[in-house]
């Protein structure tokens, strides 16, 4: 069987990186991702498999080591593992209570961090991202300029932002534009 060079994963913004006095933005390494849809029971079952309870409260996330589970909707979670391959995450069998779909390659992530991280995002995101309204661990799908994104606050001044891969050059450029004013 012929083999292509598929050892590495490549996306349009791989390796992008920018830092100024207030904020640093970088393209996150490739990750494994599942769009997980389930009934409450299905979610519980999968939590056991993953050894990580899926969050049940709107807008929250749970995480353990390299694995995070983000509440997206009442029956929808985004599972991200920054280390393990997708095969290790995907449920072995189909189940009437849930549906897991591999979307590892659908999304691209950026890490936005620094004192100006919130300002950088607020240039294009209409949400209140202050610590009181969007505390550490908050997760949400939202809008960023004209692109849909998922935001996860990983620390007081750090965020993980996920978007669909073809939107990533646009989102990157918009982040760079926002970073310009991040000190204000």
């Amino acid at each position: 069987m012929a083999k292509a060079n598929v050892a590495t994963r490549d996306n349009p913004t791989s390796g992008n990186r920018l830092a100024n006095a207030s904020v640093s933005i970088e393209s996150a390494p490739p990750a494994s991702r599942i769009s997980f849809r389930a009934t409450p029971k299905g979610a519980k079952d999968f939590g056991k498999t993953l050894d990580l309870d899926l969050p049940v409260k709107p807008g929250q996330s749970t995480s353990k080591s390299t694995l995070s589970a983000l509440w997206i909707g009442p029956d929808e979670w985004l599972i991200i593992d920054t280390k393990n391959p997708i095969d290790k995450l995907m449920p072995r069998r189909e189940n009437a209570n849930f549906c897991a779909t591999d979307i590892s390659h659908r999304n691209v992530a950026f890490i936005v961090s620094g004192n100006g991280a919130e300002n950088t995002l607020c240039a294009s995101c209409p949400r209140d991202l202050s610590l009181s309204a969007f505390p550490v661990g908050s997760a949400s799908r939202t809008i960023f300029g004209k692109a849909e994104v998922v935001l996860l606050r990983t620390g007081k001044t750090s965020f993980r932002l996920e978007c669909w891969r073809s939107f990533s050059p646009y989102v990157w450029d918009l982040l760079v534009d926002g970073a310009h004013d991040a000190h204000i």
Partner: protein
Amino acid sequence: MKPSGQQQFRVPGRGSRIGARSVSFSFDGKAYEALEGDTLASALLANGVHLMGRSFKYHRPRGVLAAGVEESNALMQISRDSARTTPNVRASVQEVYDGLQAQSQNRFPTLNFDIGGINNLLSPFFAAGFYYKTFKWPAAAWDKIYEPFIRRAAGLGQAPAEEDPDRYSNRFAHCDVLIIGGGAAGLMAAKLATRKKQSIIICDENPQFGGWLLSDTDIRIDGKSGPDWAAEAVAELAAMDNVRLLNRTTGIGYFQQNMMVLNQRITEHQSKPAPDETRERMWQVRAGKIIIAQGAIERHMVFPDNDRPGIMQASAAQSFLNKYGVAVGSQIAVYTACDTAYAAAFDLAEEGVNIPIIVEHRTDIADDLLAQANELGIRVITGAVVEGTGGKLRINSVTFAKQNGNDRETIDVDALITSAGWTPSLHLYSQSRGKPQWDEDTQRFLPGESPQECVSIGACNGTDDLADIFAEAAKCTGSRATKHVIEDDVSTMGGLIGATGSSADKGKAFVDFQNDVTAKDIALAVREGMHSIEHVKRYTTNGMATDQGKLSNMHGLAIASKLLKKPIPAVGLTTFRPPYTPTTFGSFVGHSRGNLFDPTRQTPIHAWADENGAEFEPVSQWQRAWYFPRSGEDMHQAVDRECQTVRSVAGVFDASTLGKIEVVGPDAAAFMNIIYTNGWDKLKPGRAKYGIMCREDGFIYDDGVVGKLSNNRFHVTTTTGGAPRVLNHMEDYLQTEFPEMRVWLTSTSEQWATIAVQGPKAREIIEPLVNGADISNEKFPHMSVVECKVCGVAARLFRISFTGELGFEINVPADHGRAVWEAVWARAEPLGACAYGTEAMHVMRAEKGYIIVGQDTDGTVTPYDAGLSWAIAKAKPDFVGKRGLQRPDLMSEGRRQLVGLATKDPSKVLEEGAQIVADPTRPIPMKMIGFVTSSYWSGTLGKSIALALIEDGNNLIGKSLYAPMADEVIEVEVTGTVFYDTKGERLHG
């Protein structure tokens, strides 16, 4: 006094705003000196320059009227370079920087001598609405003479002719309290609100916070001067974490649910802004509470010839003196109906400026004002009117008399300052959908109830006394009132709205300066039946200039009210619209320019196509490889070659943009039965099927091939542009009509890169790359799908064709898309295959009669019309569109149906969109029976092919029809839709 041009009107020791550093600037090419902190207006006045512009209609010479945003005369073109040029900048707002270049506007050849001034002589002809009454005959003259003439006269400054190189940005912000206006009221409210630990944003349109406190040198708050008190308040606020102070920032629009839009100007006052510094920033602030402390705007007096340069608001003269250390003249008369003008006169007199007369419209004024005037040697005549002024490019005399006409007198002056009292600024309150209430006692509109979480305080709420303002600030922040010692607060007693004397009949008494609307024009409008203030406004253009009626609205209303003999509220108040002050498009657009106007979506294989010379076509947000020209080839030749290569050897095509949706769950098939017109019960795992989707109205909505991966899982494809709306459509039915179905939908459009390999050698190309599946013709027939590995990557492989040839579509995870494509290409190229683009794809599918939804169908075409009745499972009890399809018109005979067309001359290629008629000899309007949806030159067939929607087309096969073009009539024969391999044998090869 200094020689002219050397700031001879600068008053040493005065001016809270200006610094000691001198800067130079130019106006109409002439160089001047100014002081740091000056506005363009104060700097010109310091140099004795009053003539700053020309009016719109009559080209009357005009000087500055105001010291703030309400200025409507002194508008200038300010240019940093050829691209950074801005028209209509108010000289009263623009801060002077070193090297600033200003030009006057709307004059030719010069500001002093303007040919357009002839309009002034013709002004009797140019009364309000004159153009409605003339220029109608002869009708032909309108286009040729009148209209060009009117259009040439349009406008004030010049639009930039080059793209704006500056940067603009946006910021969404949230806070507990937003305060608009940083005068005494706003600053006090902010100070008090901070005690509540609330997050606060306070903004002011000026460079410095303090508002009127910066212009009033007499007042003392707790022993401090106004400017000092303001500076301390600002320092106190700036030190707090929870306060954001934004100067040079205007609240321009109050939108729903307490969203206020602020425009912040960052570099407009800088001499040499850093090249990538942000010029303006738009803040979209969602506030828990909004405190409006916008203040009030002084009205001018309306009397004949009240527009000469040198005539301005009394408050402006006071600001020029106290903020900028500039005396606006040396012989200044005053015309007033309000106490505040006395403060201006007294301040000027104290600096040695001669105030020969205060013409007081009122008969009774406070004794202490008279006493102080007397003390300063200023003559006051009460119960008097100004009847006119003299001068050409600047006022040189003023004529006044008692209101009964007695004691007429003319004296020489070089300036005249006027005050008709103060209009509370209700703009933002009104934009919040509040209804202003008329206060009969004080003859002004005041804020009524607030429909949103907002409160107006200070002068914009009609509260003028500083002690009362501080009490309001306490109340609106829920704080206990603080105690203050306030000395020498100014009286704002008095005021007048409307024209004085007999100005509504005589002379040109300007109400709206920029638009040259006089009291007489308003009278004419009323006489002609314009009885609503909106009619008056539109007929006369009063209030429609760049100041949006900040000076003129109340006067216009009062004049109309008097003539109509109706109370002011019955005549109405025109609605205030955003923005409060003119705001650059750039700040609205913010980041959304160039690349960021809209995302440009590219597939994982895009870069390869680009490197291999592809031309791209935009399809919704995507860029798709259109064709791959080789050297010397035009589009036609490239497409011909691509088609023939695919048909004879094979081709590789990037189909990654197709929408993909994973439909999963125990009820997936049942759900598919609802959404698609087809039946899905019999489809077995591992098989694929072409599906058609309608909306409830029965018209084709989208289409695509669907693969069944397992009993519970479908891999659905959609059109490229249709992907988002199809998913939304499905979610809608799933969530709201069929919530009991256990189905989940996930977009996987971008999870997969899709590589189509089509042509007789397709299998030969991919077979060695595939692992885990037998793709032989027997085991993997047309319309099959299998999960396997391609190049070692987990893949979904389809046996499918949109060309009519043997074909496969390889779906691999997107990050591996390019590597797999290159592996396929490495196999394909040596075999003589090509990469092909969307155009060749279009030609080949048309040769096979495969439709493209959106091209061969539009939103008026049913599956029956498109020849897809086989794709409708008529036995299904329900599917979306089933009922809609039964409506009378959709079932009627003779609807437009998709057919093929063959041109009688096979070399002739029809134009897409060409209309088809049965009888081209008919006169126009000619009966059209259809149109060409797709048309191509088929190199494979050596003739042109076309698809068309034709009335009753299925019954016209074999008949001749006609496409009447602009220069010829093309005869066509109606055919079936399949032009190539009509038996469909090649698919199975």
